[in-house]
């Protein structure tokens, strides 16, 4: 005999609504932080810390989706071959998700270290693929004039990204103020 599914309880409905809202807010924050990248000239890439933040707190598939979205936004802003940064950010999102799932505690220090590693690794790869392989003359100038300033600005923007994500996560996951998962390393799932 086919079992009739029980209608959702109010608590379940509220949780679903909260999850949906959290997902929408995360995507909105990601898009918001993409705006400065389109300004032209030497600009930070705040989408990288935003993707890392999402991968720290959200579930796997959503993190990967945000990696794709963020990467495509960087490709569009920087006129790099479409998909190149998306591949990188998908890998970063998956790695960060795994790291914070099993190895690292969710803390600001870990977040900033992982962000710095991701930002500078991207610079290294970009430099290698666009300059070293092409044997471009005077390529070191690219570091001092573009890659280093852009990376440092990206690290600076990592702070507002974190401080914007953290309250959203706290509020929408219903974590009491005293139960700070920066200290406990656990989310209230």
């Amino acid at each position: 005999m086919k079992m009739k599914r029980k209608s959702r309880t109010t608590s379940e409905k509220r949780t679903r609504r909260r999850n949906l809202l959290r997902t929408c807010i995360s995507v909105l924050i990601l898009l918001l932080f993409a705006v400065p990248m389109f300004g032209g000239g030497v600009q930070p890439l705040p989408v990288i810390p935003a993707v890392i933040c999402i991968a720290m707190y959200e579930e796997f598939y959503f993190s990967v989706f945000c990696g794709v979205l963020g990467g495509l936004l960087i490709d569009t802003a920087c006129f790099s071959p479409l998909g190149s940064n998306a591949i990188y950010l998908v890998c970063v999102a998956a790695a960060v998700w795994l790291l914070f799932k099993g190895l690292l505690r969710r803390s600001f220090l870990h977040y900033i270290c992982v962000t710095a590693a991701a930002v500078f690794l991207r610079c290294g790869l970009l430099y290698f693929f666009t300059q070293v392989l092409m044997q471009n003359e005077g390529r070191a100038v690219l570091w001092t004039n573009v890659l280093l300033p852009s990376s440092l600005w990206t690290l600076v923007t990592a702070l507002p990204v974190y401080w914007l994500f953290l309250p959203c996560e706290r509020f929408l996951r219903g974590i009491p103020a005293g139960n700070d998962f920066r200290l406990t390393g656990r989310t209230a799932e």
Partner: protein
Amino acid sequence: MNLRAFFRSTKFRVLLCVLALLTGVMLYSVRQGGQTDVFSRALQTATQPVRRFSSAISGSVNRTLDTYFKSKAYRDENARLRDRVAELNGQLIGYDDAVQERDALRDQLKIKEHSADFVLSEPCRVLMPVTNDMTGSFRIDRGEADGILLNAPVMDSHGLVGVVTELAADSATVTTILSPELSVGVTVLETGEDGIVEGNLKYAADGQTKLIYLDKNSKVREGNLVITAGTTGLFPYGLPVGNITETGIEESGLTAYAAVTPSVDLSSLSSVSVLLDFNGRGVARP
């Protein structure tokens, strides 16, 4: 979750599928050349309003910060320019000679005859520089819908600026002559020597480009005018590229090089024209 379990999970398979899909998109995009594939165009067009908004804010903030942080540099520049004006006033005595020399050079270049066949686009407004690019590449507010062509030369009244390397429906990207991605066949007007102007990041940092493959015993000197050779059919003959500011021998010792300051001030461009057609376009000349 341990790693072995992750590698056996559906999550890992989905991740691989996503990566394979993105690799496919990237290879397709690279293969298209000029990044004018359908996906890029769609994204460029969709993000155009954001680009304008961000560019406006970024420009405004930069100008404000500039006023505060570079006031000393501007004061110094002002003083230097006053000296220069005084010096130029002194040189006005030789002005008539200079005009005659200019007319002679124009005749030599046959600019009038050559430019008569130029089909130029409507003036294009420079929207914004490309993000994180130090070679001065920029976006213009006209695209395919306005008849702009891929690889068409971009110029202003002073000379060659670059070429169109990426097209969207209502905007385009111009790669300047400072970029290592662009090579232009040129001739040094005074000596008739041929070479290639190819950007170089070291020189681009100073707003210069590099003339390479000159003969080791080249007679090229500081101040010589470099013009397009028009041999490939991509550029017309005689478009001013810049003036030579420095010469030297390459490390290999086989050829000479020269640093070239572009005729066009690429840092303060506000409007350019795209050369849509000219006599000999697409025809290689020996």
